[in-house]
Protein backbone atom coordinates (compact mmCIF):
# COMPACT_ATOMS: atom_id res chain seq x y z
CA UNK A 1 0.00 0.00 0.00
CA UNK A 2 2.86 2.34 -0.53
CA UNK A 3 3.86 4.51 -3.44
CA UNK A 4 7.46 5.47 -4.10
CA UNK A 5 8.21 7.94 -6.86
CA UNK A 6 11.68 8.33 -8.27
CA UNK A 7 12.21 11.73 -9.80
CA UNK A 8 14.80 14.20 -10.94
CA UNK A 9 14.79 16.43 -13.97
CA UNK A 10 18.31 15.22 -14.80
CA UNK A 11 18.53 12.22 -17.11
CA UNK A 12 20.89 9.33 -16.36
CA UNK A 13 21.00 9.92 -12.62
CA UNK A 14 20.05 6.35 -11.68
CA UNK A 15 16.25 6.52 -11.44
CA UNK A 16 15.61 3.26 -13.25
CA UNK A 17 18.40 1.44 -11.40
CA UNK A 18 16.80 2.39 -8.07
CA UNK A 19 13.37 1.36 -9.35
CA UNK A 20 14.73 -2.05 -10.36
CA UNK A 21 16.41 -2.55 -6.99
CA UNK A 22 13.29 -1.68 -4.98
CA UNK A 23 10.89 -3.65 -7.16
CA UNK A 24 13.09 -6.72 -7.56
CA UNK A 25 14.07 -7.00 -3.92
CA UNK A 26 10.55 -6.45 -2.61
CA UNK A 27 9.11 -9.00 -5.01
CA UNK A 28 11.66 -11.51 -3.63
CA UNK A 29 10.22 -10.73 -0.20
CA UNK A 30 6.83 -11.82 -1.42
CA UNK A 31 5.28 -8.38 -1.82
CA UNK A 32 3.04 -7.62 -4.77
CA UNK A 33 5.00 -5.02 -6.66
CA UNK A 34 3.98 -2.80 -9.55
CA UNK A 35 5.75 -0.16 -11.58
CA UNK A 36 4.49 2.82 -13.51
CA UNK A 37 7.00 3.86 -16.16
CA UNK A 38 6.47 7.50 -17.09
CA UNK A 39 9.71 7.78 -19.02
CA UNK A 40 9.78 8.26 -22.79
CA UNK A 41 12.58 5.72 -23.03
CA UNK A 42 10.44 3.07 -21.25
CA UNK A 43 13.66 1.42 -20.01
CA UNK A 44 11.97 0.03 -16.90
CA UNK A 45 9.07 -1.40 -18.91
CA UNK A 46 11.49 -3.08 -21.31
CA UNK A 47 13.49 -4.52 -18.42
CA UNK A 48 10.43 -5.92 -16.65
CA UNK A 49 9.02 -7.39 -19.86
CA UNK A 50 12.17 -8.79 -21.41
CA UNK A 51 14.86 -9.33 -18.78
CA UNK A 52 13.46 -9.33 -15.27
CA UNK A 53 13.13 -12.64 -13.46
CA UNK A 54 11.03 -11.00 -10.74
CA UNK A 55 7.24 -10.93 -10.43
CA UNK A 56 6.56 -7.29 -11.23
CA UNK A 57 3.54 -5.71 -12.90
CA UNK A 58 4.45 -2.80 -15.14
CA UNK A 59 2.52 -0.16 -17.04
CA UNK A 60 4.03 2.46 -19.32
CA UNK A 61 2.09 5.73 -18.97
CA UNK A 62 3.34 9.05 -20.31
CA UNK A 63 0.03 10.86 -20.29
CA UNK A 64 -0.25 13.17 -17.28
CA UNK A 65 -4.02 13.04 -17.47
CA UNK A 66 -3.90 9.27 -16.88
CA UNK A 67 -1.03 8.79 -14.48
CA UNK A 68 -2.92 9.31 -11.20
CA UNK A 69 -5.63 6.84 -12.18
CA UNK A 70 -3.06 4.26 -13.28
CA UNK A 71 -1.14 4.63 -10.00
CA UNK A 72 -4.40 4.47 -8.06
CA UNK A 73 -5.51 1.30 -9.84
CA UNK A 74 -2.19 -0.46 -9.28
CA UNK A 75 -2.12 0.78 -5.67
CA UNK A 76 -5.42 -1.02 -5.07
CA UNK A 77 -4.01 -4.38 -6.14
CA UNK A 78 -0.38 -4.22 -5.02
CA UNK A 79 1.61 -3.70 -1.85
CA UNK A 80 4.11 -1.34 -3.39
CA UNK A 81 3.95 0.85 -6.49
CA UNK A 82 7.11 2.46 -7.82
CA UNK A 83 6.79 5.32 -10.30
CA UNK A 84 9.81 5.91 -12.55
CA UNK A 85 9.62 9.36 -14.11
CA UNK A 86 11.22 10.98 -17.15
CA UNK A 87 14.58 12.73 -16.91
CA UNK A 88 13.01 16.10 -17.60
CA UNK A 89 10.55 18.31 -15.76
CA UNK A 90 7.09 17.27 -16.92
CA UNK A 91 3.48 17.40 -15.80
CA UNK A 92 3.42 13.65 -15.23
CA UNK A 93 6.27 14.02 -12.73
CA UNK A 94 4.27 16.52 -10.66
CA UNK A 95 1.31 14.17 -10.41
CA UNK A 96 3.61 11.22 -9.64
CA UNK A 97 5.11 13.28 -6.81
CA UNK A 98 1.60 14.06 -5.58
CA UNK A 99 0.77 10.35 -5.32
CA UNK A 100 3.89 9.42 -3.39
CA UNK A 101 4.62 8.46 0.20
CA UNK A 102 8.28 8.97 -0.59
CA UNK A 103 10.10 10.65 -3.46
CA UNK A 104 13.66 9.53 -4.09
CA UNK A 105 15.83 12.00 -5.99
CA UNK A 106 18.96 10.30 -7.33
CA UNK A 107 22.14 12.21 -8.01
CA UNK A 108 25.38 11.13 -9.58
CA UNK A 109 28.65 12.98 -9.30
CA UNK A 110 28.15 16.03 -11.48
CA UNK A 111 27.13 19.62 -10.87
CA UNK A 112 24.13 19.24 -13.19
CA UNK A 113 22.85 16.41 -10.99
CA UNK A 114 22.92 18.70 -7.95
CA UNK A 115 21.29 21.61 -9.79
CA UNK A 116 18.44 19.40 -11.01
CA UNK A 117 18.10 17.73 -7.60
CA UNK A 118 17.66 21.14 -5.96
CA UNK A 119 14.97 22.01 -8.52
CA UNK A 120 13.23 18.69 -7.98
CA UNK A 121 13.28 19.00 -4.18
CA UNK A 122 11.85 22.53 -4.52
CA UNK A 123 9.15 21.14 -6.79
CA UNK A 124 8.29 18.52 -4.16
CA UNK A 125 8.06 21.27 -1.53
CA UNK A 126 5.71 23.26 -3.78
CA UNK A 127 3.58 20.17 -4.36
CA UNK A 128 3.45 19.54 -0.59
CA UNK A 129 2.28 23.11 0.01
CA UNK A 130 -0.41 22.89 -2.64
CA UNK A 131 -1.69 19.55 -1.35
CA UNK A 132 -1.41 20.69 2.27
CA UNK A 133 0.39 17.49 3.19
CA UNK A 134 4.04 16.60 3.50
CA UNK A 135 5.60 14.47 0.81
CA UNK A 136 8.83 12.98 2.14
CA UNK A 137 11.74 13.61 -0.21
CA UNK A 138 15.24 12.18 -0.01
CA UNK A 139 18.21 12.68 -2.25
CA UNK A 140 20.14 9.47 -2.87
CA UNK A 141 23.66 9.33 -4.21
CA UNK A 142 24.20 6.83 -6.99
CA UNK A 143 27.33 5.71 -8.85
CA UNK A 144 29.14 6.86 -5.74
CA UNK A 145 32.90 6.34 -5.69
CA UNK A 146 34.13 6.34 -2.09
CA UNK A 147 37.45 7.96 -1.38
CA UNK A 148 37.42 10.21 -4.42
CA UNK A 149 37.57 13.98 -4.33
CA UNK A 150 34.54 14.28 -6.59
CA UNK A 151 32.31 12.22 -4.29
CA UNK A 152 33.48 14.21 -1.25
CA UNK A 153 32.79 17.42 -3.14
CA UNK A 154 29.29 16.28 -4.12
CA UNK A 155 28.54 15.41 -0.50
CA UNK A 156 29.67 18.89 0.55
CA UNK A 157 27.52 20.54 -2.10
CA UNK A 158 24.49 18.50 -1.11
CA UNK A 159 25.01 19.53 2.52
CA UNK A 160 25.49 23.17 1.50
CA UNK A 161 22.22 23.07 -0.43
CA UNK A 162 20.57 21.57 2.67
CA UNK A 163 19.07 18.75 0.66
CA UNK A 164 17.53 15.94 2.71
CA UNK A 165 19.79 13.00 1.96
CA UNK A 166 19.64 9.22 2.39
CA UNK A 167 22.41 7.67 4.46
CA UNK A 168 22.80 4.83 1.99
CA UNK A 169 24.93 5.59 -1.04
CA UNK A 170 24.74 3.28 -4.00
CA UNK A 171 28.26 2.70 -5.24
CA UNK A 172 29.30 2.42 -8.87
CA UNK A 173 29.17 -1.38 -8.93
CA UNK A 174 29.26 -3.82 -11.82
CA UNK A 175 26.46 -5.83 -10.18
CA UNK A 176 24.05 -2.90 -10.62
CA UNK A 177 24.95 -2.65 -14.30
CA UNK A 178 24.71 -6.43 -14.81
CA UNK A 179 21.16 -6.30 -13.46
CA UNK A 180 20.00 -4.74 -16.75
CA UNK A 181 21.10 -7.88 -18.62
CA UNK A 182 20.56 -10.65 -16.08
CA UNK A 183 17.17 -9.38 -14.92
CA UNK A 184 18.15 -10.27 -11.37
CA UNK A 185 18.53 -7.84 -8.51
CA UNK A 186 21.74 -8.54 -6.56
CA UNK A 187 21.19 -10.34 -3.26
CA UNK A 188 24.78 -10.94 -2.23
CA UNK A 189 28.06 -9.09 -1.99
CA UNK A 190 28.35 -5.34 -1.60
CA UNK A 191 25.58 -4.67 -4.12
CA UNK A 192 23.20 -6.98 -2.28
CA UNK A 193 24.05 -5.32 1.03
CA UNK A 194 23.52 -1.83 -0.36
CA UNK A 195 20.20 -2.89 -1.85
CA UNK A 196 19.12 -4.26 1.53
CA UNK A 197 20.27 -1.10 3.32
CA UNK A 198 18.33 1.01 0.82
CA UNK A 199 15.13 -0.86 1.63
CA UNK A 200 15.81 -0.75 5.37
CA UNK A 201 16.12 3.02 5.16
CA UNK A 202 12.99 3.34 3.05
CA UNK A 203 11.17 1.22 5.63
CA UNK A 204 12.48 3.43 8.44
CA UNK A 205 10.99 6.41 6.61
CA UNK A 206 7.61 4.69 6.79
CA UNK A 207 7.34 4.26 3.05
CA UNK A 208 6.88 0.49 2.99
CA UNK A 209 3.92 -1.53 4.18
CA UNK A 210 4.66 -2.94 7.61
CA UNK A 211 5.84 -5.35 8.66
CA UNK A 212 7.96 -6.29 5.68
CA UNK A 213 10.41 -9.10 6.22
CA UNK A 214 13.08 -8.27 3.72
CA UNK A 215 14.68 -11.25 2.03
CA UNK A 216 18.33 -11.60 2.98
Amino acid at each position, binding site marked *: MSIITIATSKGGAGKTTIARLILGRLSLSGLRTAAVDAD*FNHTLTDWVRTASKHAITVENELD*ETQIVSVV*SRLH*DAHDVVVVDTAGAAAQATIFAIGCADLVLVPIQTSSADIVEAIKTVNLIKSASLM*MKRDVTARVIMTAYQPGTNISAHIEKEVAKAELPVMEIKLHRLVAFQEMSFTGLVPTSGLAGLQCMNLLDEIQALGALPEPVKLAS
Partner: protein
Amino acid sequence: MAKKDLASVTTDLSALASMMPTQRPVVAAPRAVEQPVELRALKAVPKPTQEEEGVIQFSLSMRKELRKQLARLASDADMTMRAFVLNALKEKGLSVREDDLVDLRRERR
Protein backbone atom coordinates in the same frame (compact mmCIF):
# COMPACT_ATOMS: atom_id res chain seq x y z
CA MET B 1 -0.05 1.87 6.02
CA ALA B 2 -3.55 2.98 5.11
CA LYS B 3 -4.78 3.11 1.58
CA LYS B 4 -4.28 6.57 0.18
CA ASP B 5 -6.97 8.64 -1.44
CA LEU B 6 -5.45 9.98 -4.64
CA ALA B 7 -8.63 11.59 -5.89
CA SER B 8 -7.56 15.13 -5.04
CA VAL B 9 -4.00 14.93 -6.40
CA THR B 10 -4.89 16.07 -9.90
CA THR B 11 -7.01 18.98 -8.69
CA ASP B 12 -4.49 20.11 -6.08
CA LEU B 13 -1.54 20.03 -8.44
CA SER B 14 -3.03 21.06 -11.78
CA ALA B 15 -1.92 24.69 -11.39
CA LEU B 16 1.64 23.65 -10.62
CA ALA B 17 1.63 21.07 -13.41
CA SER B 18 0.39 23.57 -15.97
CA MET B 19 3.78 25.30 -15.74
CA MET B 20 5.51 22.14 -16.95
CA PRO B 21 5.71 20.62 -20.41
CA THR B 22 3.26 17.89 -21.29
CA GLN B 23 4.31 14.34 -22.11
CA ARG B 24 1.03 13.53 -23.76
CA PRO B 25 1.59 11.89 -27.14
CA VAL B 26 0.78 14.31 -29.94
CA VAL B 27 -2.44 13.31 -31.61
CA ALA B 28 -2.49 13.78 -35.36
CA ALA B 29 -4.92 16.42 -36.57
CA PRO B 30 -8.13 14.89 -37.91
CA ARG B 31 -8.30 14.58 -41.68
CA ALA B 32 -10.30 17.33 -43.33
CA VAL B 33 -13.76 16.24 -44.37
CA GLU B 34 -14.09 16.30 -48.12
CA GLN B 35 -16.20 19.21 -49.31
CA PRO B 36 -19.42 18.54 -51.23
CA VAL B 37 -18.93 19.14 -54.95
CA GLU B 38 -21.27 22.13 -55.00
CA LEU B 39 -19.15 23.91 -52.40
CA ARG B 40 -15.87 23.29 -54.18
CA ALA B 41 -16.72 25.95 -56.71
CA LEU B 42 -16.96 28.54 -53.99
CA LYS B 43 -13.74 30.30 -53.56
CA ALA B 44 -12.43 30.10 -50.04
CA VAL B 45 -11.32 33.31 -48.42
CA PRO B 46 -7.55 33.05 -48.57
CA LYS B 47 -5.83 32.99 -45.22
CA PRO B 48 -2.88 35.32 -44.94
CA THR B 49 0.23 33.31 -45.69
CA GLN B 50 3.27 33.36 -43.47
CA GLU B 51 5.08 35.40 -46.11
CA GLU B 52 2.33 38.05 -45.99
CA GLU B 53 2.61 38.20 -42.22
CA GLY B 54 6.36 38.22 -42.38
CA VAL B 55 8.21 35.25 -40.95
CA ILE B 56 11.07 36.24 -38.73
CA GLN B 57 14.06 34.38 -37.35
CA PHE B 58 14.12 33.99 -33.59
CA SER B 59 17.14 32.56 -31.83
CA LEU B 60 17.07 31.06 -28.40
CA SER B 61 19.97 30.41 -26.00
CA MET B 62 19.80 27.52 -23.62
CA ARG B 63 22.03 25.08 -21.82
CA LYS B 64 23.44 22.31 -23.99
CA GLU B 65 21.64 19.70 -21.90
CA LEU B 66 18.29 21.44 -22.41
CA ARG B 67 18.93 21.56 -26.14
CA LYS B 68 19.60 17.80 -26.09
CA GLN B 69 16.42 17.15 -24.12
CA LEU B 70 14.43 19.31 -26.52
CA ALA B 71 15.82 17.40 -29.49
CA ARG B 72 14.94 14.10 -27.85
CA LEU B 73 11.42 15.11 -26.83
CA ALA B 74 10.73 16.53 -30.30
CA SER B 75 12.09 13.41 -31.95
CA ASP B 76 9.93 11.21 -29.69
CA ALA B 77 6.90 13.27 -30.72
CA ASP B 78 7.96 13.01 -34.38
CA MET B 79 8.08 16.79 -34.64
CA THR B 80 10.72 19.34 -35.48
CA MET B 81 12.07 21.20 -32.47
CA ARG B 82 10.48 24.36 -33.87
CA ALA B 83 7.06 22.72 -34.12
CA PHE B 84 7.49 21.15 -30.69
CA VAL B 85 8.22 24.52 -29.06
CA LEU B 86 5.38 26.26 -30.91
CA ASN B 87 3.00 23.47 -29.95
CA ALA B 88 3.96 23.87 -26.30
CA LEU B 89 3.42 27.62 -26.51
CA LYS B 90 0.05 27.02 -28.14
CA GLU B 91 -1.04 25.33 -24.91
CA LYS B 92 -0.06 28.51 -23.10
CA GLY B 93 -2.36 30.54 -25.31
CA LEU B 94 -0.14 31.59 -28.22
CA SER B 95 -2.21 31.78 -31.42
CA VAL B 96 -0.42 29.03 -33.31
CA ARG B 97 -2.06 27.79 -36.52
CA GLU B 98 -1.65 24.40 -38.15
CA ASP B 99 0.42 25.94 -40.95
CA ASP B 100 2.79 27.37 -38.35
CA LEU B 101 3.70 23.80 -37.45
CA VAL B 102 4.66 22.76 -40.98
CA ASP B 103 8.18 21.42 -41.27
CA LEU B 104 9.83 24.22 -43.24
CA ARG B 105 12.93 22.12 -43.85
CA ARG B 106 10.97 19.86 -46.17
CA GLU B 107 9.77 22.85 -48.18
CA ARG B 108 13.29 24.04 -48.74
CA ARG B 109 14.55 20.64 -49.96
